[in-house]
């Protein structure tokens, strides 16, 4: 398994969490707390996965739309969103609750 941290992203004053992980083949999660993390770089990925509590937001690999959903702060949510292979620069992000939420994000390829 190879893994490269591609880009650690901006942590805003609003405490958004950002997951920045890149790898050619399955990558492991870079655990972040209360912020936003990004996956990006030149390595294409198909999926972004995240585990969050609270409000969550993501952009699937190679997609141009970001989504946001409400979520409970008392329960973990496991999300997996498929994007497109071969995207140049793309991102995964999780916006989480300030007080007690965490987000883990990882970008993976399968198959």
């Amino acid at each position, binding site marked *: 398994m190879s893994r490269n941290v591609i880009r650690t992203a901006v942590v805003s004053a*609003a405490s958004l969490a950002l997951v920045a992980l890149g790898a050619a083949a399955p990558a492991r999660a870079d655990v972040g707390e209360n912020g936003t993390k990004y996956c990006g770089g030149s390595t294409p990925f198909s*999926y972004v996965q995240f585990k969050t509590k609270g409000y969550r937001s993501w*952009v699937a690999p190679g997609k*141009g739309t970001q989504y*946001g959903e409400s*979520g409970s702060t*008392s329960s973990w949510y496991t999300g997996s969103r498929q994007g497109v292979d071969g995207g140049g620069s793309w991102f995964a992000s999780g916006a989480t609750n300030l007080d007690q939420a965490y987000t883990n994000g990882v970008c993976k390829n399968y198959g």
Partner: protein
Amino acid sequence: MRAVRLLGVAACVIVTGCVTSATPSGSPSTPSVFVGTRTEYMQAVVQCLVKKGVSARFEVAEDGTPRVAMPATTKAQIDRNNAAQEECRKELPPTPEPTTDADFREFYAHLNAEAACVRQEGYETAPAPSFQKFLESARGTGIDWDPFRDVPPQLVDSVRAKCQTDPNKWW
């Protein structure tokens, strides 16, 4: 995550969200929460984002989950979206959370039903914790029993669409 309390929803004004309090006004120690459906909450988020200049729109995901969609073609745009979402989340009343043992018991039953569906679809799912352990985690670090967690990532969206019950009821 809890069942949304629907009483009084009809009277709510979506634009600002509805706020309720368990005690009469003037009790600053009682937090107010959003009263309305999850859909109405996300519609309120969309309106807030639009006011902040984000080209946000409301939509319902394939699995029935209400959500907001925004253009995100650059990192700078994602940063702006994230900041605006966080601002809106702070400006809106907090979303309702389970508080009583009865709330958590209802949620526990809901997750058990979803887990049964996941197994029926042919996928493994982690065994249910005892209710006591479930309650302890709910009041501690968070419930970490997600019936969909062990479904292959390539399939989790479709399985969730089949097995997720009433995404507008559970936050």
